[in-house]
């Protein structure tokens, strides 16, 4: 859908829905929200709902960043310690790389 053509209350509603949906372990939805509403939140001439949209966008961006950092940290910790953790780590592995010659 064409976001920029939607009426302002609708934009706010969508932005809010996307933001709340992101709490269901959905950082990707937050990231979408940021990209989607960024224009409206920061580039457009002010309109009544803008401040709220801006807030949701910023929160979504913060949430996305937190998730990215946490995920990268977890992956690094897990992959560096996988052998050390033994069988537990193997059970947690979706894909164990094969050795290559």
């Amino acid at each position, binding site marked *: 859908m064409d976001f920029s*053509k939607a009426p302002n209350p*609708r934009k706010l509603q969508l932005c809010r829905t996307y933001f709340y949906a992101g709490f269901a372990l959905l950082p990707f939805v937050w990231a979408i929200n940021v990209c989607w509403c960024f224009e409206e939140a920061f580039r457009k001439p002010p309109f009544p709902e803008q401040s709220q949209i801006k807030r949701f966008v910023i929160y979504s961006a913060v949430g996305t960043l937190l998730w990215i950092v946490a995920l990268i940290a977890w992956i690094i910790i897990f992959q560096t310690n996988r052998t050390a953790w033994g069988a537990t780590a193997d059970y947690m592995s979706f894909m164990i790389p094969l050795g290559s010659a």
Partner: protein
Amino acid sequence: MDGHVNASSSSRSGAGADGSGLSGAAERLERPPKRTQQRGNYGSNNQDQTDAAVLAVPSVAVRGSSASRPSRLSGGGGGGGGAGPPPNETEEDQGLKYGAQHVIKLFVPVSLCMLLVVATINSISFYSSTDVYLLYTPFHELSPEPSVKFWNALANSLILMSVVVVMTILLIVLYKKRCYRIIHGWLILSSFMLLFIFTYLYLEELLRAYNVPMDYPTALLFMWNFGVAGMMSIHWQGPLRLQQGYLIFVAALMALVFIKYLPEWTAWAVLAAISIWDLIAVLTPRGPLRILVETAQERNEQIFPALIYSSTVIYTLMGTHYTPQQSAEPAVTSSPSSSNSTTTTRATQNSLASPEAAVASSSSRSGNTRTHPHQNQRDDSNVMAAEAEAAGFTQEWSDNLNDRVARRQIEVQSTQSGNAQRSNEYRTVTAPDQAPADAQEERGIKLGLGDFIFYSVLVGKASSYGDWTTTIACFVAILIGLCLTLLLLAVWRKALPALPISITFGLIFCFATSAVVKPFMENLSAKQVFI
């Protein structure tokens, strides 16, 4: 299946509550006659009026504004008459011009889909070997005898096609009875399967092919995010690019499933059978797809937008938004009354401000019919679901086929786009007119996802033999076939199947290239001879 191409000047046709028209495209084509008709009976066809208004728009600046209904009608006729010849011509030209743009807008996603499939086939060996089979293909072509293989393929494709036919008919019955909930649920289910289960398999094979380590929490988080975002953007609302991306991905996934699970000869036979079925379903008077299109037209709805890739916004924001206005309108619209609320038109026009925006035809549609938005969404979901089901191999699978058929319909409303632009220009003036809104509504080209799927199956299958020249030849042939289909669309102005020409070209070039051209080119390139 039915790949239709509708060149609908949806706006006009759509605008008409009468909705007797076939696809918008057909209507569009009919315009010239319409104008005359309009003059003849103004009151009867609002839509016509709108069309006329649209046509007239260029000259309109004053007129549109001045045009009250009656004036409009007359204006429509008059516009057609006075500005008539130039506008008509320009319209046609613009139609073609935008047609060229829209052709490219279709080329890009079709190419992306094929590229995704070809890249996957070449990097993940999992998808190029068949060891498990679909329920629908009981004959596994294990015999070395070509004749036995041939009969196996024929029987398999017959079974598959009958499933497809049955599912298509079921879909149409459901649609006719307005069981939108069932269709919608079905589509959601199938898209759910595609987006979760088959994406999961894909992820696994992808990671295995590239030997990338991953742990379950990360993988599950990724799947959950990917799937939910996909469901949201496909069935609910999301950025257009994201939705298009998901549709392309789903189509590619479905094509990979076909390539993986269909025995080799059966895959080719199915491709041929599907394009023939497409031809029948769309062009025969009682063809299911044709019925579908006509019914949708009657109801002023979009045909299973879910099954359709749209180069522009398919569904309207307005669904929720404009409902009030729409509701107001619908009452009006119920009668052929042209009186879509001016407000809606305006909204649409605004969206139209840029031609592309105008393309967000759905919004404009919403103006015309409020049902559209919802239906569109449903349609989208349908498409997805259908595909998903297809992935499932179950009944859903067959259902998907139906969906795909629906998806295949291409609607080219480029002409409308032209109109839309005009309307934009004159927006301020014409806003009151319904016509602009209508015109804007259905712009953009829509290609059924089914077409995406089967094009990709053809190219992917060709590339699975490891010869790049065959792949390129198929690719070029399919694109040219698509061009020709769109050209025919512009000439005939009725719903056309998108598969037959492309698939025929593709099959001819695939076999000719791998049998004749490939040895020749191999000889040449081994000796470094350039021609």
